[in-house]
């Protein structure tokens, strides 16, 4: 009795051994990947197979669910809307943030640090808080059911994070570069576009990827401000129309979700490192 307790205690002290560690990580990976596996395998199954073979690989993989989804009258339009809104708002926001970040990092003016410190905490304001006032205002300005509405809101909501990230990158570039260029007769704008932007590529890539993922996946604002079927984004279209329409045709719904997810998976594969670097920026010390 006593000796077996002792053995257990020693075993506990050695835990987790290599095997246990490996098992823990495998379990985590399986749990992480399972929803993706479920979505993708089931999108290749016929209805009957979905009910009889929930977990396994498709016995007779078919592309029919994808053709059915791609024939949906609005899917192409939703996809196009999402692409347009994502690229448009990320572009507008990035350009505006670059200008502001440059001023915060390299120009001297009264109230600079106070202003910067006021902007960064805005990141935590819940989006639902902005939705009511913006909805009332934008209805008057005819910006509801108009892609311009969410474009303005997204561009604004992304600013605090983007300004914060870029400003903190700009200050790491030696200031002598700016001084030298100004003495050589460059204007501030030339210093920014010809020197700082090329040097800031990593930070720009990070902020663009983080922001693009966010806009592409956003639900609340797109739902409230784009209410007509043709104006919806892909994510809203999938969650409102497709979820209702294909409740009984799960494989087709899964195919729709897969279509909406593919661009983000591609972006992740390309920009994984930049994404991770940006999100943990400043927290590795």
């Amino acid at each position: 009795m006593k000796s077996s307790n002792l053995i257990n205690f020693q075993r506990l002290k050695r835990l987790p051994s290599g095997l246990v560690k490996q098992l823990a990580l495998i379990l985590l990976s399986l749990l992480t990947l399972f929803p993706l596996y479920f979505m993708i395998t089931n999108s290749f199954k016929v209805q009957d197979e979905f009910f009889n073979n929930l977990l396994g690989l498709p016995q007779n993989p078919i592309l029919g669910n994808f053709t059915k989804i791609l024939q949906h009258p609005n899917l192409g339009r939703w996809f196009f809307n999402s692409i347009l809104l994502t690229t448009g708002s990320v572009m507008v926001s990035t350009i505006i943030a670059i200008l502001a970040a440059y001023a915060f990092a390299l120009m001297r003016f009264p109230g600079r640090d106070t202003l910067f410190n006021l902007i960064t905490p805005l990141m935590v304001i819940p989006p639902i808080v902005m939705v009511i006032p913006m909805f009332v205002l934008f209805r008057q300005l005819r910006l509801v059911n108009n892609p311009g509405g969410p474009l303005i809101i997204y561009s604004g909501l992304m600013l605090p994070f983007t300004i914060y990230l870029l400003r903190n990158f700009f200050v790491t570039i030696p200031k002598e570069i700016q001084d030298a260029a100004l003495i050589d007769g460059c204007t501030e704008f030339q210093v920014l576009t010809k020197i700082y932007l090329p040097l800031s590529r990593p930070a720009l890539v990070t902020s663009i990827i983080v922001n693009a993922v966010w806009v592409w996946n956003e639900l609340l604002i797109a739902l409230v401000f784009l209410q007509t079927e043709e104006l919806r984004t892909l994510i809203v279209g999938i969650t409102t129309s497709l979820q209702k329409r294909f409740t009984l045709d799960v494989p087709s719904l899964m195919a729709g979700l897969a279509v909406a997810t593919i661009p983000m998976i591609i972006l992740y594969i390309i920009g994984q490192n930049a994404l991770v670097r940006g999100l943990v920026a400043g927290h590795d010390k």
Partner: protein
Amino acid sequence: MHRSFQSKYTPYLYLSPALILITLVFVYPVFDLIRRSLTKLVDGATTWTGLIAYQNALRDPIFWTSFSNNLRLLISIPILVVLSLIFSSLIFERTGGWRYYRSLIFIPYVLAIPVVGIVFSYILQANGVFNQILRSIGLDSLAREWLGTSATAIWAIMFVVIWKELGFGIVLFLARMSSISEELYDAAKLDGAGWWQQMVYVTIPQMTTVIEFYIIINMITMLSWVFSYVLVMTKGGPGNSTWVLEYFIYQKAFPYSQMQIASAAAVMLLIFAFLLMFMQARLRHQGEGVEG
């Protein structure tokens, strides 16, 4: 010295687009919301109503259901912290295949909440995969419609939130761990410290700042970024059992057109968010002070 190259107004020229947009999207809504929560339109004239809308919101039992669900979701935070610590350590120790694990665990971050929510709602339904697994290991009595039962729905949502948020914690902690001095671990090992002891006496004390940051970020998430999960997985149901504050505000504002109550609830949510933000700013300040 470069001041001569720069007119007094240049900085403001560079800042103005950002300041205009921030004023429109952040500053104006906050003030408008406060005004809306305190006044009412009667025959086209704005009438001061004081705190009536707040009282109405606070008297609404669903407001309290919603708020208590936000509080329930906070329970995910200790779970997230512990899991992030364990898994970031395992990856940090270069357990076989760590590179592969490191890139896998962050995938949930790029997936849309609605996509994740729909997939999980099929996994968790009565005849879904999860219940099939439970039945196959003899736990038939546990099998249920996880999102369709009042008692379990909010916990099922919490599970999905954890699934989505865990990767960020692991990656964040991993970044911090790589700057902990090796010597500390060597010293601990010399003293005979096992894996858990190294975790408790070396890793955790070295990581307090980043753990606090992660806790506060998650408090903000559980309070004000869970709308999409609820909308997609349960629409607040069954009954009102999975309403959260954001969902309360959304429902009052849009389907019910009770803008004043919605505004009052939104102001209260904003106050919570600001309190948390204030805590975060203080922690960051302390952290910077300590780290020099």
